[in-house]
């Protein structure tokens, strides 16, 4: 390779420059989302770890079961019954879309389209 010393130095500078955000934030966890958990209830439909990892899959599963298979209740791992409904079950405890759903979703740039049709608790106030 011709001019290998210059080229290699150039590549190293290039990598260092483009990985700047990584170096600047190294070891620091900034802007961790803090979704507001409901104060009056401690237990969700399933355990906290499960909900964190699989809430999106669970919601899709609920949607299919309720709309397409005509089921009403979800039975959780402890044998408890829950009505499958985003507006009437989830949002009865998590009383805010902006303070709960959006905080994580905005941080990781996820844009689920639930609220284009489903009415968020905040939006109900617009009509009252």
């Amino acid at each position, binding site marked *: 390779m011709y001019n290998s010393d210059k080229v290699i130095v150039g590549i190293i500078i290039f990598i260092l420059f483009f990985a700047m955000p990584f170096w600047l934030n190294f070891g620091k966890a900034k802007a961790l989302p803090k979704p507001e958990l409901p104060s009056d209830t401690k237990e969700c439909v399933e355990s906290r770890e499960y909900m964190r990892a699989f809430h999106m899959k669970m919601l899709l599963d609920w*949607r299919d079961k*309720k*709309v*397409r298979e*005509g*089921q*009403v209740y979800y039975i959780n791992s402890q044998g408890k019954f829950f009505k499958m409904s985003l*507006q*009437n079950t989830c949002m009865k405890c998590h009383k805010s879309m902006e303070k709960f759903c959006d905080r994580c979703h905005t941080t990781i740039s996820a844009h689920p389209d639930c609220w*284009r*049709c*489903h*009415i968020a*608790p905040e939006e*109900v106030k617009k*009509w009252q």
Partner: protein
Amino acid sequence: MAISRRDFLKVIGFTGVTSAVATIGGVLIGRGEDILKEIKPASKVRWAMAIDTRQFKTDEDFQKVIEACHKAHNVPNIPDPIRQVKWIWVDTFEKAFPTIEHEYISEEIKKRKFLLLCNHCDNPPCVRVCPVKATFRRPDGVVVQDMHRCIGCKFCMAACPYGSRNYNFYPPREFLSQVNPEYPTRTTGVVEKCILCYERLDEGKQPYCVEASEGKMFFGNLNDPNSPVRKAISENIVIVRKPELTTKPMVFYII
């Protein structure tokens, strides 16, 4: 020992015939099993509705029913008559039953108004044309529109002979004066229609319109001889909309 030409041909022929039979037979048996899997036992429940048109006299009677449905399901009130959204509405005999209409039928019938909604056909053309299976027929006969899947192609609107389907040309939330927080709205670009309150049926309740009509509409299981619909149908003269299209409507009109 060398095999003779005649024996060789015999062996080849026999093998060929056996393998052909085995292949065809295997394919047919496999098919049969698949077909058997697809045949589902007929559901014991077949929801149907009968509307006693003699009892609906004033505009108030109609408005009460329509409002109960539209309020509960967040149906927008769009002033544009071509692009409005409606789940249940009112029209004349001529418009509702165009093929039964005759110039010499009684004046009273001609002037009578009829409550119209999705007929939840036994043979629904809208289900057949939907390219994404957003519209489907449940085993209990309710034709449901799954808004999550609808792509707004409007095929079902062209297929439905009863005009039960409406496309959301306008953002529906802007045309809601009040909202039921327990039920979603729709978004621009989907088709919507009456869903016979399938969520309430699953919970053992009656549809909103039947509740609000206060005995002017009958609802129940068509397969149960003691259900209110069966009684209403057997004791009165009923007609259905456009029976010649063989869609088998499940909303009966008592004349």
